[in-house]
């Protein structure tokens, strides 16, 4: 039926791919790491160029949704606009407060994480069931395996493989990804694992009696020397809790802050903070104790205070 030559070539190809699978199944730095590095250094460079060419198409992130529901969106936006106009006045006050909070957050976070910016240049197809992306920074930019990847919203993932000028990042929603997480308020710890869906993570509390509520924020617990996950990074918000307190498996569904399906610019944490910024966004307890201790003040400091107070009142 088939010619002899066809049969020989086909069997060679089948045997070759089966051999690849079996050799690669062993995991670790298999015999293909050098092949992968070579291919990715070629493809990575071309991907970079292609990403630039395609950026007008991929850059408009809501391209698909606008195509689908433009008329509905216009109606929704008109209603929303009216509502927002009326809310604007009362929002002024909130904006001022939010600015102050922003300032506090920036003080807490900026300067602690040293971040190398990178851009996503390719995304793995959905059919592979692996949530991985390629970024345009590699070992030449100081990246190493197991570094944390963040964006403006929060934790994105970690660096899986590093090549010369590109690296592969596995996202937190990948089913094989698990991150140590901590509820920001109650300090309960647990494990945040990916589900393979882009907008939900599973958060399993280590303490079955632990307190977790809808709306709680979850931050990273941090790993030893900040690899693979630096501490204190926002992961997501609890949207649903299944199981009652005391039940063996209490699982909360967490919606990640970062929209992993529309990633563009990300940052790789090259250097984690020297210390865990676990409470830095909360009111600092040390300030409270410092202001509480001087209550039995010696007279000298009292005099200083009274001496200092007339000066501004005099002005």
């Amino acid at each position, binding site marked *: 039926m088939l010619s002899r030559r066809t049969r020989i070539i086909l069997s060679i190809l089948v045997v070759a791919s089966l051999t*690849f*699978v079996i050799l690669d199944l062993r995991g670790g730095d298999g015999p293909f790491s050098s092949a992968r590095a070579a291919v990715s250094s070629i493809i990575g460079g071309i991907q970079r160029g*292609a990403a630039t060419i395609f950026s007008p198409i991929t850059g408009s992130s809501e391209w*698909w949704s606008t195509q689908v529901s433009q008329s509905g969106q216009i109606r929704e936006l008109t209603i929303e606009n009216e509502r927002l106009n009326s809310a604007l006045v009362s929002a002024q006050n909130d904006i001022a407060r939010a600015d102050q909070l922003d300032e506090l957050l920036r003080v807490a976070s900026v300067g602690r994480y040293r971040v190398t910016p990178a851009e996503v240049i390719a995304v793995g197809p959905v059919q592979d069931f692996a949530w991985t992306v390629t970024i345009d920074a590699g070992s030449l930019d100081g990246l190493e395996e197991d570094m944390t990847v963040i964006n403006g919203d929060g934790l994105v993932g970690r660096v899986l493989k590093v090549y010369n000028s590109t690296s592969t990042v596995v996202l937190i929603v990948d089913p094989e990804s698990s991150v140590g997480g901590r509820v920001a308020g109650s300090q309960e710890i647990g494990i945040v694992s990916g589900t393979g869906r882009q907008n939900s993570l599973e958060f399993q509390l280590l303490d079955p009696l632990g307190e977790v509520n809808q709306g709680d924020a979850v931050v990273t617990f941090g790993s030893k020397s900040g690899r693979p996950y630096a501490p204190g990074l926002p992961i997501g918000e609890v949207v649903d809790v299944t199981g009652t307190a005391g039940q063996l498996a209490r699982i909360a569904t967490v919606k990640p802050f970062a929209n992993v399906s529309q990633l563009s610019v990300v940052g790789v944490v090259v250097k984690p903070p020297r210390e865990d910024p676990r409470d830095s966004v909360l009111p600092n307890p040390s300030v409270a104790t410092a202001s509480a201790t001087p209550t039995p003040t010696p007279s000298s400091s009292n005099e200083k205070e009274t001496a200092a107070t007339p000066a501004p009142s005099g002005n």
Partner: protein
Amino acid sequence: MIIRQGLFIGTCVFVAVLCELTLLSRLGIPGATPDLVVVTVVAIAFAMGPLQGATAGFAAGVLLDLSPSSDTLLGVNAIIYLVIGFVAGFWIDPRDRTLPIMIGITALSTGAAALGTAIVDTALGGDRVNWVEVPWITLSSALYGVLLSALIIPLIARISRPFLPEISFS
């Protein structure tokens, strides 16, 4: 002739892999990523024959597995695409090469590729596959296969004409 065919297949597969990873997978389209690679492999199989289809499938699978932003086992996509390329080229009736039938076979192929990846990945002990999502991904992949193949099959058939094999399989 063999070298020219190889160059043609290699170029087509390379361009398809590049477009899929940098353009199609980043559009944020619901469901599966439009599987340009499988459509290209099937189109090559239609235009040139089962052996060329299988070779194209193997090359595409290896390239897709090796390229960055994929974390699959090397060889999984290769064997799935190899089988698809061979079957598509083998089962197409030379007397009945109408576009609707070819589009139908392509849709089946893209669906089978998505389903096949899920099955092989699970069989090899991976726990990445979320089986709740598999039917939807398979279905949407087949649907995008229809859309892409209406464009790609005539294109490949047109540009592959100078590279056609003189000896057909029998």
